[in-house]
């Protein structure tokens, strides 16, 4: 039976939800608004929220100074490439852990996660040398590889939790009907886990899109993604907030739009298994 929610309670819930939503969204909104101010207005105190002379000057300036499209394409290639490669590796791995566990499975999972516990700068020099010696510096392939490795533990963990929710009997039934292992994973498991896989995919694209340590340190110009594009607009000498805001807005817009359109999938995936 559905719970009876009084209208008063509903109003309180709505207000609280909106307040939290606005609080979380505020920095992005502020960046967006600042991008339409002049540099002098961007630092004015007290700041004006809406009543300033709106200008597109910063966007023109950013466009004139750097090649947005090149950075954008690099970001797309790196984030989608690394996530897809990660999924190809992680789906079989998560299958094995969820449906054919051994006494050591939990340890393996923990070990995978432990690789995330080290601050990345700790391995910067060895990684840099490896990249230099293999000619991977400033290449998209190099970045796809490293971001795959970085996000793999999260992908495996997420998929593992989703797969655990799927009854093993269904896979058993498929096996009884003579499905091979590959067929079992591709035709039975994957379709059932689509919401989970979709949200893993989206979350990892977002993570890879925003990754700003390796993408900044292992690139120079050819493979530099949007993180490098943003980093070029901060300055120790002179005013830069408005231009930086314009660059940031341009950098996050694509991923924001993607997130908007796939909101339903994302929410469904994240709450997958919670309600049966």
């Amino acid at each position, binding site marked *: 039976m559905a719970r009876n929610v009084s209208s008063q309670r509903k109003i309180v819930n709505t207000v609280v939800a909106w307040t939290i939503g606005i609080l979380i969204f505020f920095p992005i909104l502020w960046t967006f608004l600042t991008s339409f101010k002049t540099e002098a207005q961007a630092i004015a105190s007290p700041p004006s929220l809406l009543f300033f002379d709106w200008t597109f000057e910063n966007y023109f300036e950013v466009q004139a100074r750097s090649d947005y499209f090149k950075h954008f394409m690099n970001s797309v290639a790196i984030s989608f490439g690394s996530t897809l490669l990660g999924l190809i590796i992680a789906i079989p791995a998560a299958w094995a852990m969820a449906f054919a566990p051994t006494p050591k499975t939990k340890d393996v999972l923990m070990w995978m996660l432990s690789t995330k516990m080290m601050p990345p700068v700790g391995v910067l020099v060895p990684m840099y040398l490896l990249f230099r010696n293999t000619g991977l510096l400033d290449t998209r392939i190099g970045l796809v590889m490293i971001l795959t490795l970085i996000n793999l533990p999260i992908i495996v963990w997420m998929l593992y939790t989703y797969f655990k929710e799927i009854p093993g009997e269904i896979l058993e039934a498929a096996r009884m009907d003579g499905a091979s292992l590959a067929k079992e994973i591709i035709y039975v498991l994957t379709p059932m886990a689509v919401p989970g896989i979709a949200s893993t995919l989206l979350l990892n694209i977002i993570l890879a899109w925003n990754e700003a340590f390796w993408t900044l340190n292992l690139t*120079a110009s050819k493979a530099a993604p949007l993180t490098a594009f943003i980093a070029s607009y*901060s300055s120790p000498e002179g005013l830069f907030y408005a231009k930086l805001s314009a660059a940031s807005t341009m950098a996050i817009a694509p991923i924001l739009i993607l997130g908007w359109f796939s909101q339903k999938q994302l929410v469904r995936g994240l709450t997958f298994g919670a309600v049966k």
Partner: protein
Amino acid sequence: MNFKPLLLGACSAVVLCGIASAETLTIATVNNGDMIRMQKLTDDFTSKNPDIKLDWVTLEENVLRQRVTTDIATKGGQYDVLTIGTYEVPIWAKQGWLLPLDNLGPDYDVNDILPAIRAGLTGEDGKLYAAPFYGESSMVMYRKDLFEKAGLTMPDAPTWDFIADAARKITDKDKEIYGICLRGKAGWGENMAFLTATANAFGARWFDENWKPQFDQPEWKKTLDFYVKLMKDAGPPGASSNGFNENLALFQTGKCGMWIDATVAASFVTNPKESTVADKVGFALAPDTGLGKRGNWLWAWNLAIPAGTQKQQAAEKFIAWATGKDYLKLVAEKDGWANVPPGTRTSLYENPEYLKAAPFAKMTLDSINAADPKHPAVKPVPYVGVQFVAIPEFQGLGTAVGQQFSAALAGQTSVDQALQNAQQLTTREMTKAGYIK
């Protein structure tokens, strides 16, 4: 017959040949106004050197420093020309990471480079390891209108006592006018640049001749006491988080009576497009205390060639173009003399057109000339550098000490405690690094 594939093949062959014959230089640079202008003038260089293409990597200073250091230390070879500061040049030259600039061409006129700037870029072997793109010192910028109202006259070479007195007189906290804005944000390039230079004027030094830290000496206590008290009486609220940009914003919006900082700020505060006080700004030398040293620093952004590059000749051509005399003329033609990168060449300061367009030119030159990186302090020191100590450990040390001093300014610790902590941590690090035996 279908000619399309043939045509396509021919086209790509032509394109490939084109790419193969042009050499691409990758240039790493900081995102400062003068560098951005250079980037926009790329066409002038490529039209004179059609066989060289330029690929720019522009980054924020700290990101750039981290990335370029990683690359050069591992001989990664990603960059052909680097933009580095006066702090890095002597350290990197000593490590053998930079190529000497011996072949900048007959027209380059090395002797025209300002002697103080050149001294900081010359290695122990007497060779030039980086060419200055623009140079700066520090000076006092003040509001002429507020001084007039308070009945004060700023001398060309003020003392710290005068500055402190004037700052307290001008301050009107009800109207949000603060007598003086100084750096307080922790960092070796933020508050410690200012405080190290100021300490020189107060007779203090980082190390004695045996590399023993000197924060337990009375000169440092005097410096820090003076600074903290002055900022409490006449500084803006929250000064411990103010760096160059924050103070710039305060000054431009008319909230500071005085600001002591980089000479490059002069062109920002006098720019009517950005500054509400553009026509009311005066300049003076950084203050002293009568001990013979002024608290003005010396910095330059320079172009250098990393030892790992395969394109030395093309890189030399580019550096000769970007730091040569003709570049200054080019900028003057396109954007006017006031926007020419300052502080590198003697000839610029003899050019009447420049002197007319830049009211801060004389003060900039005097400030640069007054700085002596080889003898920065009143007492003898074992290091080079006015507002920094040119040893690899200084980035970490300077920032750690800066955090102590920033905490003292914020009132989180006492001046004595901050100095004691600074002395302890510096002694520990210097012992670990082998300077103190």
